[in-house]
């Protein structure tokens, strides 16, 4: 078996034809991933006991003639902000370097129920705050396609693992683009589902009104299989949606002829020329498939970055208050008084980006500034959502770039926080509106750097999004 190019289908066929067992596959996958991790630093930790235990369970099911599940023996990498029972979960933070969660996230429970093997936990920006994975306390991740460049972030480890072939699938989390942007930088598929589609129980909270868990994969079809396994109402997350989960794989086979697609003018003006050319070529491909493409306006786009960095930091400053040296985290040695314990634990433990966001969020929520910043941002958010609602009255889906530029060099933007924030400009709009969006590879620059096309659809219309992505992938393959 060729580990780095394995597909869900190949694994299933191989298992059922008894060409290999799930345990053999788990051993090989772990060996391969461990051997290749030094090239990227994608994984912070492997979970061999867990993967081998799940694999043995799959083998038993097959031996008994039972269906081993839609993700039987599929190796999955999990972003280290998603808790795994008895497997250290660090969130990329020194504060949680030794944190052993007492429970599993719902997404993890559902993955293992579907037969998946949790291979290990992937590196990420500390508490998912960043666009490059350089903010991890455990060292940056390198882009497997260009080792001097970032993999994007904050789900950079998950993206690198899937691109490198050390996992077939990965879970990422997305608050303002943290699945789609690294997917685009690493040349894979990344899906941010509709807000509420996937339970966040066990996802370490960053900005609760924006946080999502979503799939990362090497094709739209495989991302759809992963989403199928984890989507749906969960009593443990009051924000998870009641809406029934459609059959995503079934919905991919439809025709895209006559599909009405919007191309937002506001998303096309600040692209580097190569990204712009690749997006234009992708649009031409969609036109050839019979899609009806029209330009649209999303006028509040220019205000999205400002809106997002108020709302996200405000929520983060509140969510991160729990890391105080009492319950989960390490505690500063300089904890003479209660106040010193709080201040020094947090001052020593958090990295620069988390501190910056805690400061910003605390500032915009502080007395006298709430209306000017936070309330204003919530109103602008409503306008951004209204732009999309109006657009989806006219079109079935929207196509756009994911990022204004391809993967940048390690260190290139780390000292310029505003430039880093502005790199999220095309992904945070969809996050603010809570609509499903995804990144699909649409080619590479002359230097070999991947570029992703973004597809955005209306709330719960993942089927249209996947159908378009799948048709686009097939057209590109021909």
């Amino acid at each position, binding site marked *: 078996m060729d580990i780095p190019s394995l597909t869900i289908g190949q694994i299933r066929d191989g298992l059922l034809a008894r060409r290999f067992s799930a345990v053999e596959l788990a051993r090989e996958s772990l060996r391969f991933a461990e051997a290749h991790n030094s090239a990227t630093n994608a994984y912070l930790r492997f979970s061999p006991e867990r993967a081998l235990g799940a694999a043995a369970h799959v083998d038993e099911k097959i031996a008994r003639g039972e269906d081993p599940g839609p993700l039987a023996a599929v190796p999955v990498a999990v972003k280290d902000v998603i808790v795994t029972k008895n497997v250290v979960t660090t969130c990329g933070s020194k504060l949680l370097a030794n944190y052993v969660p007492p429970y599993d996230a719902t997404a993890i429970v559902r993955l293992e129920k579907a037969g998946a093997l949790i291979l290990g936990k992937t590196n990420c920006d500390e508490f998912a705050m960043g666009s490059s994975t350089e903010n991890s306390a455990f060292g940056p991740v390198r882009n497997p396609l260009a080792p001097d460049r970032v993999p994007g972030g904050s789900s950079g480890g998950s993206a690198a693992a899937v691109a490198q072939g050390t996992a077939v699938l990965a879970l990422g989390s997305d608050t303002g683009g943290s699945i789609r942007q690294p997917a685009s930088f690493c040349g894979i598929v990344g899906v941010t589902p509709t807000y509420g589609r996937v339970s966040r129980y066990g996802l370490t909270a960053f900005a609760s009104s924006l946080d999502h868990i979503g799939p990362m994969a090497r094709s739209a079809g495989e991302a759809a299989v992963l989403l199928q396994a984890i989507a749906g109402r969960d009593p443990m997350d009051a924000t998870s949606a009641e809406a029934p989960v459609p059959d995503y794989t079934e919905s991919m086979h439809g025709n895209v002829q006559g599909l009405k697609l919007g191309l937002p003018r506001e998303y096309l003006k600040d692209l580097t020329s190569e990204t712009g050319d690749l997006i234009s070529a992708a649009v031409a491909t969609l036109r050839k498939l019979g899609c009806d493409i029209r330009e649209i306006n999303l006028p509040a786009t220019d205000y999205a970055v400002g809106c997002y960095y108020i709302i996200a930091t405000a929520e983060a400053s509140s969510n991160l208050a729990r890391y105080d040296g009492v319950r989960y985290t390490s505690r500063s040695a300089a904890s003479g008084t209660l106040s010193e314990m709080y*201040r020094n634990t947090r001052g020593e433990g958090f990295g620069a980006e988390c501190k*910056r966001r805690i400061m910003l969020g605390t500032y915009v929520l502080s007395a006298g500034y709430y209306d000017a910043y936070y309330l204003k941002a919530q109103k602008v958010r409503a306008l951004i959502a209204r732009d999309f609602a109006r657009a989806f009255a006219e079109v079935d889906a929207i196509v756009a770039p994911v990022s204004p530029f391809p993967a940048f060099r390690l260190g290139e933007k780390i000292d310029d926080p505003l430039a880093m924030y502005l790199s999220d400009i095309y992904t945070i709009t969809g996050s603010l509106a809570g609509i499903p969006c995804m990144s699909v590879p649409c080619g590479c620059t002359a230097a070999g750097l991947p570029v992703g096309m973004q597809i955005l659809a209306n*709330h719960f219309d993942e089927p249209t999004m996947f159908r378009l992505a799948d048709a686009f992938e097939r057209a590109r393959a021909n």
Partner: protein
Amino acid sequence: MKITEKDVRYVAELANLSLTDAEVQKFQADLDEILGYVERLNEIDTAGVEPMAQVLYAAGGKDTWRADREVPPIGAEIALANAPQPGAGYFKVPKVIER
């Protein structure tokens, strides 16, 4: 500069965050730049717009409360397993009230 050093120290106090003098300087410049950028939100007219605190979409009438059933708690031992200083079934912290 709009954001002063005093502002930064005050906000750090509110956030229970000890900062070095170098961090105070750095965050003063960063906050000033980022909040300066954010000023552009004042260009957009939001009169009469309802603030959006949460993602809203058309949903069925069923409420999202879960059934009110007893669930066994994880227990003190497990809850304390990650604490830096557990003791006698509690989280220990430095003395709060001086005698």
